């Protein structure tokens, strides 16, 4: 999915205000960028068709709101990138510093930390002897 510059701005705006009609978005945008109400209306419509927004008819106008919160959307996007290649996220096309999905137990991590500290102490001893 590709987002145009205006689409990205409108989506960012809706993440901030949560819900707005085309008129509201146009009014808020009028202060810092040009663009007719029609352009905003068609941008909202495109975002709705891309399933990024949901809409409710209130009176004669649609009220648009984001389907997912920004963080949730980004988290799902990352998850979908790591899922697309294999059901096992560990062999996804991502090369992650630490597992994208697996949550390690504290006991396990503590024991690894203890091993690291032990090794540090051994190296420090060797350095002091030198």
């Amino acid at each position, binding site marked *: 999915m590709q987002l145009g510059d205006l689409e990205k701005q409108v989506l960012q705006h809706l993440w901030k205000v949560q819900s707005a009609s085309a008129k509201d978005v146009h009014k808020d945008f009028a202060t810092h960028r040009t663009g007719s109400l029609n352009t905003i209306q068609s941008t909202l419509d495109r975002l709705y068709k891309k399933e990024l927004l949901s809409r409710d008819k209130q009176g004669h106008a649609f009220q648009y709101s984001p389907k997912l919160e*920004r*963080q*949730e959307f980004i988290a799902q*996007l990352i998850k979908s990138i790591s899922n697309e*290649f294999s059901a096992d*996220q560990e062999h996804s096309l*991502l090369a992650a510093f630490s597992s994208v999905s697996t949550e390690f137990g504290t006991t396990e991590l503590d024991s690894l930390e203890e091993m690291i500290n032990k*090794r*540090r102490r051994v*190296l420090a001893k060797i350095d002091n002897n030198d």
Partner: protein
Amino acid sequence: MIETFITHFQEGFIVFLLPFILTLITLSCGLIVWQKQRLKMTATSRLKFSENTLWLFALSPWGAGMLALGVVNYSGPAHGLIAGVIHWHASHLSSLLSWHSLSALVFSIFLVKYLLRYSVLLIADYKKINLLKQLSTKDGDVYHIESDVNHAFCAGVIRPHCFLSSNLKYQLSKKEYDIVLRHEQAHVDRYDPLRKWLMGMLTAFFPLTVARLIQLNMSLVCEQAADGMASNNNHDKIDVAATLVKFSKLKASKKSSTKQSPITSDFSLAFDHDALRQRVLCLLDDKETKNSTIPPIVITIIVSTSIILVDSSHHLIDSFLLH
């Protein structure tokens, strides 16, 4: 004329296919047995596959098929010692209704299916990463993602990029942050997403368990290579290990904000826990780990035998099915 062409084409496919399948089956059985033995060993004494061995695994069936095709085509029907053993004299007997045709057809369908799947995957990956880039802030070569969840990864098959959560700067020290950056930059320099994509495509014909085993080992190898590139000396190596554990702890303390449950199988979960341990142990170990020469020798024997058996295996199947 057309029939002759189709006959030659399907015969070529069979000469390729028989050693391909023989190598695939033998390697798969060997790898499953090896994995069962491996799980009985401790993490430090386990035999580790080098990246070259993994590539050898993935390429062997294709190599066996191509070599057999080359030997049969270029050594003539019955001249020389090699041609005497790996001879092929079935082309003039072939029929369009034989198992040759059916096998060639089924294999071609699967081949096209996988090629399409991996091409579609490449396009989907490109589009999603473009969207992620648009929602991130670029700072030099790094894209910062505004997210409560800690992310540090390299993505993009054709043009890889580093993505880091913006709050990582505040949760890690300058040195730790630099280690994460160097690690991710190493993935970019090595084109690791492309390596993984190619490995996935090459192992697509292996049984699922075996393919996953090779692919997961490949992921581990890529991570270990990036760990190595992020460290220059023993002190650095310990710092990389410490950062890795700290990062995992941070991730464990902060659960994903998404309501979706993580899609990870028990198999990969177990492998991943083991992989983290192996990465840390490898970084703490002074000794250079020597790669075993056994797998490449075994693979070479399997490939050679599969090529030699091309005509015998063909005759064996002929005794059950219509030529």
